[in-house]
């Protein structure tokens, strides 16, 4: 026969073993962790897309490389984070070569060529162009023509990769 507790102890429940159940939370965290590990890339961002523009989508799979960075946003033409001119002026100008941009580009090219002489860092003449996807073609052509005439013939367009 079982031991019968005394009347005073009969209704005591044990509060010491109250424990939080973490199992479902652990499951969730494990799934999130695995997902994040999967999308984690060791390369990191070499090229950061600028603000105030939406890059076009493309099926291209080439990985972008570091180079001189020219962004054509909705308002400004930005070379290496420094604004060069307004996009409206670019659209309005009748010239094919844009002098303001050409001056800046030649300055960068000269610096890069000096670097090449002094430290042997090869000047490849490559430039990354980030354009807003609604940019009209005539503006793009003007920018490309200017780059081509300013010692930067290797142009790359930065795009978002389609998931397909």
């Amino acid at each position, binding site marked *: *026969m*079982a*031991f019968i507790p005394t009347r005073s102890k009969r209704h005591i429940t044990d509060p010491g*073993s109250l*424990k939080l159940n*973490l199992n479902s*939370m*652990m499951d969730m*965290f494990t799934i*999130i*962790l695995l997902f*994040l*590990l999967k*999308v*984690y*890339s060791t390369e*990191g*961002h070499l*090229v950061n*897309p600028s603000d105030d523009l939406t*890059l*076009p*989508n*493309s*099926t*291209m*799979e*080439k*990985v*972008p*490389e570091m180079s001189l960075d020219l962004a054509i946003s909705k308002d400004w033409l930005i070379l290496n984070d420094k604004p060069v001119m307004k996009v409206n002026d670019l659209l309005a100008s*009748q010239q*094919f070569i844009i002098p303001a941009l050409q001056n800046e580009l030649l300055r960068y090219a000269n610096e890069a060529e000096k670097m090449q002489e002094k430290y042997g860092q090869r000047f490849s*003449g490559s430039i*990354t162009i980030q*354009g*807003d*996807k*609604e*940019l*009209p*073609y*005539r503006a*793009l*052509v003007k920018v*490309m*023509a200017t780059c*081509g*005439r300013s*010692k930067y*013939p*290797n*142009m*790359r*367009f*930065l*795009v*978002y*990769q389609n*998931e397909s």
Partner: protein
Amino acid sequence: MAFRPSQRTLRPKQDADPDLTPIMNLMVVLIPLLLTSAQFIKLGMIEINLPPAISADAMLNMPKETEKKLDLSVTITDEGFYLASSLAVARGRSGQGPTIPKLDTGEYDFAELNKNLYKIKKKATGVFKDVDQVIIVAEPEIEYQTVVSTMDAARAYMSDQEKLPLFPTVSLSATVM
């Protein structure tokens, strides 16, 4: 009165739960770390190489073109695509207008362009020298996205299983402003 049972045999069963607190600590640190470094948007790059501007002297010394060239070009207008080569300009279905008109919804028909370019590629391979080059010309007001999508359509053709290269070397040409 009954004997009190032995404390040893009736000791309540110990819970076998492992202590998860250190693992939770690890998770709390790892997840923000990975979240900040995760790359949700993949960036790509389209290469366009122009020959550096050359002087008139160099131009004269360039060898004369002897090979047959295809000189394929895709012209984007606000009505659709025109396809042209050194031999002919491809006509539209009704005999006039663009080769590949816009869809009824007002969108460009990139799938049809892709198919047509595939046909041209099949015919031109072996006959011409420059079967991986295409020149893209666009009207001044064409949007950048359309130009990029046209390049995509010209780059590769997805057949049933494999990806066949079409004209990966793209040049852009200026239009009359």
